[in-house]
């Protein structure tokens, strides 16, 4: 299989070098750039399958570069930025980035996100969806095979956890309270408030999310309940 290439673009050379090491350990080819315009230039010269892009860079910033890239390419773009505000994240994602990672990032988490994006970009498009499969983003529920997959990888869940995922996947985007989830999954009325459901949800997140603290799929709506995001 042809080597997949990642374009790493950051004005801090140390970060670029470190990322090169990590990416090469994962078996990716690496192209390095230090400004937004260099990144655009590299895209024309090399075959690139994923871009790691900083925002605050000289010559051309990451957001402008994202807009330019999105004009004719749909390769995955992961923004890595020191800007951690919600507004920055929303702006980055709205301009066409696929993911947003704040500095200082956990290198393992970043690699997981790279792999996830890479799988979706290279493989998922070609996989024909079977009947009875519910899908949101990279999260798939195969009710016939009783399997849950994230970016194609099978996740091992307990029966209760599986039940919760099924209930929430069947109602993508809907928020359910602890009591509602308990009644649906355990099939018995919830008398007293228990944190059993919350504990289970936490465990599910740890299994299906790259960063359980910032979940992509199974989200907590604080003081209201839980939902699985619809993508």
């Amino acid at each position, binding site marked *: 299989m042809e080597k997949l290439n990642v374009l790493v673009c950051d004005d801090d050379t140390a970060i670029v070098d470190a990322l090169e090491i990590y990416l090469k350990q994962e078996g990716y080819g690496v192209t390095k750039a230090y400004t937004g315009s260099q990144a655009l230039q590299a895209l024309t010269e090399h075959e690139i399958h994923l871009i790691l892009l900083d925002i605050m860079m000289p010559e051309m910033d990451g957001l402008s570069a994202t807009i330019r890239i999105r004009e004719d390419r749909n390769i995955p773009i992961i923004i890595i930025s020191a800007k951690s*505000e919600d507004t920055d994240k929303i702006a980055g994602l709205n301009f066409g980035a696929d993911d947003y990672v704040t500095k200082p990032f956990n290198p393992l988490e970043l690699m997981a996100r790279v792999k996830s994006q890479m799988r979706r970009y290279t493989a998922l498009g070609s996989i024909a969806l079977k009947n009875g499969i519910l899908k949101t983003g990279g999260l798939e529920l195969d009710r016939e095979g009783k399997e849950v997959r994230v970016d194609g990888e099978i996740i091992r869940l307990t029966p209760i956890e599986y039940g919760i995922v099924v209930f929430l996947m069947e109602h993508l985007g809907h928020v359910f309270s602890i009591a509602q989830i308990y009644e649906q999954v355990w099939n018995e009325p919830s008398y007293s408030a228990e944190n059993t459901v919350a504990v289970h949800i936490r465990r599910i997140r740890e299994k299906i999310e790259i960063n359980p603290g910032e979940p992509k799929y199974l989200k907590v709506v604080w003081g209201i309940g839980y939902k699985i995001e619809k993508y």
Partner: protein
Amino acid sequence: MDIKSRNISYSSGVKLLAIIIVWLGFLGTIGGCLFLLQNHGIASLSSYTETYSFQSNFSRLLYNTVEYHVALKSEDNIKDSAEDPQTEAENLQRLHRIENRFPTMVNFVYYVQNTETGETWTNINSETTDPIQFIQKQPAAAFFNGWTSDSSIPITENVADMLAGGPIEIYAAVAEPLQPGDVFYDDYMDYTQAQSDTNLASILTILSFFLMAAAFIYLIYVAGRREADGEIVPALIDRMYSDVHTILVFIAAFLSLLMVGSLSFNTSADLPILIAIAVILSLDIFIGLSYVLSMARQIKTGQIITNTLIYKVIAGTNAFMRLAFQGKVFKIWILLFLLGYALINGLLFMVCREVYYGHVNGLYVLSILILLGFDAGMLYLTAKSLAALAKIMEAAKQISAGNLDYPLDSSLMPVSFASFAEDISSLQGGLKHAVDIALKGERMKTDLITNVSHDLKTPLTSIVNYVDLLQKENLENETAAEYVNILEEKAYRMKQLIEDLVEASKASSGNLAAAGEKVNLQELIMQACGEYAEKIQQAQLDLHVQNTDEAVVIWADGKHMWRIAENLLSNVIKYSMPHSRVYIDIASDNGYGSFTIKNMSAFPLNISPEQLTERFVRGDESRSTDGSGLGLSIAQSLTGLQGGEFQLEIDGDLFKVTVALPLWAEE
């Protein structure tokens, strides 16, 4: 010595003495002057011969002499020439009376001669002296004949009639030195006595006057001073307005003069009257002296003008006028306006009444209409003013409540209120400006912290990455591996610190938006406990949640609430004593939904709750455990941001924190 004598000269004893000198000197001067005035007639004459008494006696004796020697002559002559017995009797009686008087003429000398007959009559011993020569030597000598008189003593008409055209010549004089025994001698002695008395009185008067003047000048000089060049010390009486003082003194002087005048004119100078006059004059001199000295002190202090009632009244009026007409505090014309309004209204009413009783119906209606129209206009103006005032009051209330953008339009207000409204507006502007500056400063601080944090994060990323890479290297040296682990731990702590710092700065400066939504507090606590279930278990804590039966729904931002719960729970896990129980109570009362977390601290909390919520302050103060120390501060700021209340209590090792937020109200 010099200083001592000077101090003595300013002592109150000397002053008292000077006052007494002025008093006595004044009485002496006045008394002397009165005496001199009374004896003016005698004192002004150069000789006793000029006295009225001398002259009248002299001319009486002269008349007697002439009458005796020229008119009556002798009993025979009277009997011969008498026309009727009655005249004869009268002339005889007269003759005898004059004859009896002659022996009393001790000092009066005369020489009468008839130039035709050569007859002479004299009481001078003509054998020893020549009578004419003797008489002419005397100072008070007189010569008369029918035609001329050579005398300072006026000749009476009777004498002149008797001598008229006749040949009689008379030489008369008072012979000196005077011998005792007649009226001339007595008069002379009286005159001499009076002269010497007058001289003494003059000397005494002048002496009194100069003593008084000297003492007076001294008193004026030392008035108000306790020592030489000392400060002027006003006396109690100086507080009296000087013009009022002056008027009172003049009234007192006038009254006393009236009294003295009436006393001295009514009766002759008896001793009680004299004493009464002296007492009144003494009172006068004391009043006058105190007045003059008071004026002297006030002139010295320069208050003589300012300490007058007139000045005070003028100054007060000026101030009042300024306040009334220039200041915007109080408009006197409003008062005048009210008075004018009442006056016009009264006049109009009277006109109406007059017209009504005059039964002029058309005019009656007209005048009523004018009255109503006038009052309606006034009512409109008053209502307009009151409306303006109400607007201003509302604006002031809004501004004081913090609504600095409350619009206050002064364009439609009456002039007097418009300026007031403008003042309120400018006050509002100033306040707003100050608040804006404060907000701007706070925002700049947050921006600075945010920017610095961005710059810190980039190198930190490299540190985290390379530490991780180092860990993956096969480090033979175990110590080196241990060091790398420490580096990793500290790098993550630094990451946490930077994030907390940014968040704390945003939360405390209010630069964080709070999206108000329905939040079920029980759900939130369960979710949070679920998130922390494993860690709580690891920390060997026993968690007890006390729930209410009914749902507690608050109005809050779910993400902020989670952050608060997260910070508090991570504190609980970090600082609680292992194997202790942790209680979370959910409650709702007074429009607030709250949760309270209670736990036992593993370390003594020798710190106040206030210090605990201060940034970078932590209970253990050692900062050895992970965390930034900003957790409580952030939780407090976020609670405040959502309109809630954050309460910390420390009771020994019991740590209790209550977060209360407004309950959701269906609108």
